[in-house]
């Protein structure tokens, strides 16, 4: 019985990539949301936070690695800092039922702020960070969120300072809410 449950859960919750596309209505709604995200990325507090992180990385996070990040509990002060700093407060204020995740990366891909703990410490080398750093907007495939079981799509926009990309803002949207 226990084994059966484990198998069923694994089948149900393991992250899967779906090749399906967004409907026309969802695509239109997403395009609208991307514009909103761009506006958030242009907010002074967001730009200031990235500029500060780029200028002087935080001392407590100098030795941070992906593994160390994964071992940190959600309520650890080092994790809670990113949702409590001024940029994190801005992101929390923008949260709504469409947004499943929202995080801000510095130029090196390390975290500057988020509304909930991200799976990785840095996203450097991944398209969701590298594309915005090249000044482009990135849109990921429709995926199943393993924690919620809901299909979502990620979008990343550059954070610009004087026309130059200094960081990235990544947002996850629940596609069932995109209307």
């Amino acid at each position, binding site marked *: 019985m*226990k084994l059966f*449950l*484990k198998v069923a*859960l*694994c089948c149900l*919750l*393991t992250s899967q990539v779906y090749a399906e596309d967004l409907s026309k209505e969802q695509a239109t709604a997403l395009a609208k949301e991307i514009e909103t995200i761009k506006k958030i990325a242009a907010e002074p507090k967001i730009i200031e936070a990235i500029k500060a992180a780029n200028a002087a990385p935080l001392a407590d996070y100098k030795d941070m690695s992906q593994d160390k990040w*994964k*071992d*940190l*509990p*959600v*309520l*650890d002060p080092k*994790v*809670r800092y990113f*949702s409590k700093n001024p940029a994190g407060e801005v992101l929390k204020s923008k949260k709504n039922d469409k947004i*499943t*995740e929202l995080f801000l990366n510095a130029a090196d891909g390390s975290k500057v702020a988020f*509304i*909930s*703990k991200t*799976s990785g410490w840095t996203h450097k080398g991944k398209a969701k960070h590298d594309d915005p750093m090249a000044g482009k907007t990135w849109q990921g495939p429709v995926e199943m969120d*393993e*924690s*919620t*079981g809901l299909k979502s799509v990620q979008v990343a926009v550059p954070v610009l300072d004087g026309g130059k990309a200094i960081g990235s803002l990544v947002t996850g949207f629940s596609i069932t809410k995109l209307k």
Partner: protein
Amino acid sequence: MIKKLGLQKYLLIIISGVVFISLISSLFTVAYIQRSITGLIKASEESARTTNNIINLSIDISSIQSGISALLTEKDPDVIEASVAAIQAKSKKVLVDISQCQFDCPSIAELNINYDKKVSELINTKILLGKTSEAIEYYIGDVSPVYLKVLADLNNKGDIVQKNTDLQLKQSAEQAVQLKYVIASSSGLMIVIILLGGLSFRKSLVKALNAISEELKMSTSTIKDTSNKVASTSDFLSESSTEQNASIQSTSQAVQEISSMTEVNKNNVGISTKNAQESQEQIGEGKLAISNMLSAIGKISSSNNQMVSQITKNENEFGEVIHLIQDIDSKTKIINDIVFQTKLLSFNASVEAARAGEHGKGFSVVAEEIGNLAVMSGKAATEISELLNNSVKRVNEIVKNSQSAMGQIVETGKITIAEGTKSANSCHQIFDRISEESSQICSILEEINAGTLEQSKGIEEVNKSMLQLNEVANKGEQISQESFQMSAKLNEQSEQLSKIVNELVVMIDGSKNNLN
């Protein structure tokens, strides 16, 4: 027996007997019920406490379980922090619930320790590290089975409590059946006693009631007659009150009219008083004018006298003029003598001139001329003398005429002044009388005014009294109507009493055929 003891004593004895037996049986029953209920309450309280414990534990553990369930997919760190704190608080409460447990708790305590351990592991090693899949797997595979075991154990404890309660209820039901029999037998005994007493009581009571019903019948008839009389009297009283009311109202209206008339009179008297006062002032002015006129007439009279004396004086002066004229006349005669002598002289001169001849011719002419002048002077003196005589005559005539005319005028003036004075005096007297009468009128008007005021006050008092009288009349009418209604009610009640008596008779005799 009733006659011997009296109805009250007889009833008291029967009721006392019944009460005594009831009391004994009730005491016995109550003691029995009390014993049963005390046991039942104890059992119920224990059952309730245990059930309460079980429910509280179930609720608290279930809320931990549901809190964890919500945490599994929660990403918001604020919510996670709050939920973890709530779960920890609930876990502490569960421990308190178990420590205050009223039933066999060790098994639950052991299960809870295991459950608590698993919950802590789930939160700290899975949920807080964001290992959602592992957390769900652990939640379903490890935490939930322990939770279900705890619930099943609590359910078993609940069943045991239910069974104990049922047993207590069953015992109570058996005791209730026994009690039923006891109560039934004591009630039966009571019924027999009441029946025997009642039969004896009935016999005596029927007799007494028959007599009473007869008396009641008579009384009812009397009450009916009386109430009818009261009704007719009330009716008459009501009519009279209505008439009286109408009369009072019309009288009140009349009084109000008089009151308004008095008010008008008061105003008129005020105006008349004012007018009379003004008239008196004018009379005063008239009197003053007459006094002025009298003094003027006096002055005229004195002027008249002065005029008479002046005329007399004038007459004397005329006399002097006449004397003067007469003196002039005598002087004229002297002139005539001088003229004669002059003529004579001129003649002598002419004679002497003629004697002188040629030498006297010039002298004769002068003498002739002197003679002519003397003739002319004589003529003039004669004419003057004639004129003077005529003047004296004319002056005498004028004085005479003037004297008679002035005498007449003075006489007439005197008469007129006397008449004027008389008229003015009589006017003065009349004005005095008018002034006096006017004063009297003023004082009368003041008295009328005072009287009118008093009258007005009196009318007001009368008006008030009329209103009071009206109220009294209304009240009288109301009372008579109430009296009428009461008499109607009395009549109704007497009829009802009559019915009751009939029913009593029927009840006593058991048949309506016995009714008269």
